[in-house]
């Protein structure tokens, strides 16, 4: 529940075009003073146009109509094109690599591993998260653009797994970041990883209807 409100905020920034920091969420509905349009800065102008379009769409009921059409389309695109982060922690990372090998070929599901967190949708936590790694993993998660999902792959990422009594392993990835899909197994087989992605697809379709004109 908490996550959904966060996501809306991120998308609002996206709609504002440049994601500029000067936009203040309290002043969104304010109209610029008449006659001063030429004096606006470019980001203010964009914001004003954005608001004007939104208000017009809202009052005429256009927003409902547009959303009704665009929502399934965006949702379709989001769920059929998950780009995971190329990030390996332990054993399950090997199986993650093996899943893209010819025998299993996870590329069939449209997966492209990207190395930069800026270009990814899915973070696969595939191993034990140690105390030293936790801040880095959190940073990686925060570097990813909205909307984003997390898959906890394997027992270690779910609960600490075989390292439950270690002094340095965190008891599961969900203790410090939201996790969408859990894949049990030690290690997770490539088939299970594929099933995990299909489950994520299911979840995106049911829980997150996409957006176009949404606050």
């Amino acid at each position, binding site marked *: 529940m908490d996550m959904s409100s966060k996501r809306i905020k*991120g*998308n609002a*920034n*996206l709609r504002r075009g*440049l*994601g*500029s920091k000067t936009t203040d969420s309290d002043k969104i509905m304010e109209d610029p003073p008449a006659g001063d349009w030429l004096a606006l800065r470019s980001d203010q102008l964009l914001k004003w146009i954005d608001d004007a379009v939104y208000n017009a769409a809202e009052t005429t009921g256009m927003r409902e109509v547009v959303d*009704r*059409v665009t*929502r*399934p*389309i*965006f*949702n*379709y*695109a*989001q769920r*059929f*094109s998950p780009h995971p982060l190329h990030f390996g922690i332990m054993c399950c990372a090997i199986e993650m690599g093996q899943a893209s090998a*010819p025998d299993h*070929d996870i*590329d*069939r*599901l*449209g997966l*492209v591993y*990207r*190395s*930069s967190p*800026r*270009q990814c*949708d899915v973070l696969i936590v595939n191993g034990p998260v140690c105390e030293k790694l936790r801040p880095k993993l959190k940073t990686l998660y925060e*570097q990813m*653009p*909205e*909307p984003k999902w997390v898959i906890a792959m394997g027992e270690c990422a779910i609960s600490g797994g075989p390292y439950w009594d270690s002094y340095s392993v965190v008891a599961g990835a969900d203790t410090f970041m939201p996790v969408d899909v859990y894949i049990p197994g030690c290690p997770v087989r490539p088939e299970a990883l594929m099933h995990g992605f*299909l489950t994520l*697809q*299911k979840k995106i*379709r*049911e829980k997150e209807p*996409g*957006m176009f004109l949404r606050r």
Partner: protein
Amino acid sequence: MSLFSFCKAMAEWTADYMLIPVFNFQAGLFPPFSNPAGDIADWLETDGGLNTLAWLFAVNIAFAIGMTNLIIVIHLERKIAARIQDRRGPMLSLRSFRELGEDLAGNSPSWRFKQNYAGIGILQNMADGIKAITKELIIPAKADKFLFTMGPIIFISSSVFLLVLFPLSDRFAASSAPAGLMVIMAAFSIAPIGVLTSGWASNNKYSMIGGMRSAAQLMSYEIPLLLSMAGVFLLAGSFDPVTIVEQQQQSTWFFGLPMWNFIPQFIGFIVFMICILAEVERVPFDLPEAEAELVEGWTTEYSGIRYMLFLAAEYIRGFAGAAVCTILFLGGWAGPWPVPPEVWFLLKVYLILIFWIFIRWTVPRIRTDQILELGWKKLLPLSLINILIVIFMVEIYPYLSDTLTLLPEVF
């Protein structure tokens, strides 16, 4: 009928039946002063106005064709790569639209994953592209905001610009300038500026090294590239793509076969193929975005649609590079009759692209110092040798043969 005359007819039709009535109507609604609608209607009736409208149509048609090709190229790349690697590649099928229909109609969802993944996967590109629109655009806090936004604009616009610059045949050209190929090459070398800009503005060390590498690569490759093209220009005596293709068609070999440029200028052809690979930054010369050491190179900090457009622009450049190669060395749109020349042209372009895809997935990437060494020490002398051969063909050989035929008359 050429593309331009077709567009001219279309422009006349739209101007007469749609635009001028609309503008006149609007001019009637408002007082005439400070109302440009009437002026626009008048201007559309003139020759200049009609020509401008016709060019607009022509450019848009060329652009649409280029973009369609782009989708096919990306799909080909993924599928052929998968086949090389003994896999199947993306398989998102048209039947996955069933889910879209259910969502649009508001029906309860059904889960038939097997049906979604049983096609040829051309929808995968659409899904990737539309998804990129919905992603958040991130500008890093310490990045140079203006240049960070400008970098992609420079890179993408210069690449998309390429799409309308080359003709698909002598009758299908959105633009035909006497200096056509020079403009194309100039447009090609704008992009590294965008790479350097965005690499520097990202405030990321990987990006910066990527941008620097791009600049270094540009310097070492532009010179042999243009020198290898110089041979073709000398032979044709023109920079115009149409003239170059016609010249290739006219010069014949044994059995009356046309002697395309890659036969007499084989050295130049090899040099050009290597250099254009470096120009469009494909493996083995994709140093600026070398994934193994520079994460994603100069695109590391870009997210969402910006990154997706970078990716698309690279394929557009690949497509344009293959088109230039076809025009210069492979006889352009020339081919036996029943197949239209545009199809011949695209066939040749795709042949080159598929060759590049095979190269990309079968060789490792080479190193920066090796690329510079190759450019300066090997390719530059080779392209100069090529020019020497062409000079011999164009200038000295006719002179010599003339003298030799004259000799019996003298004695």
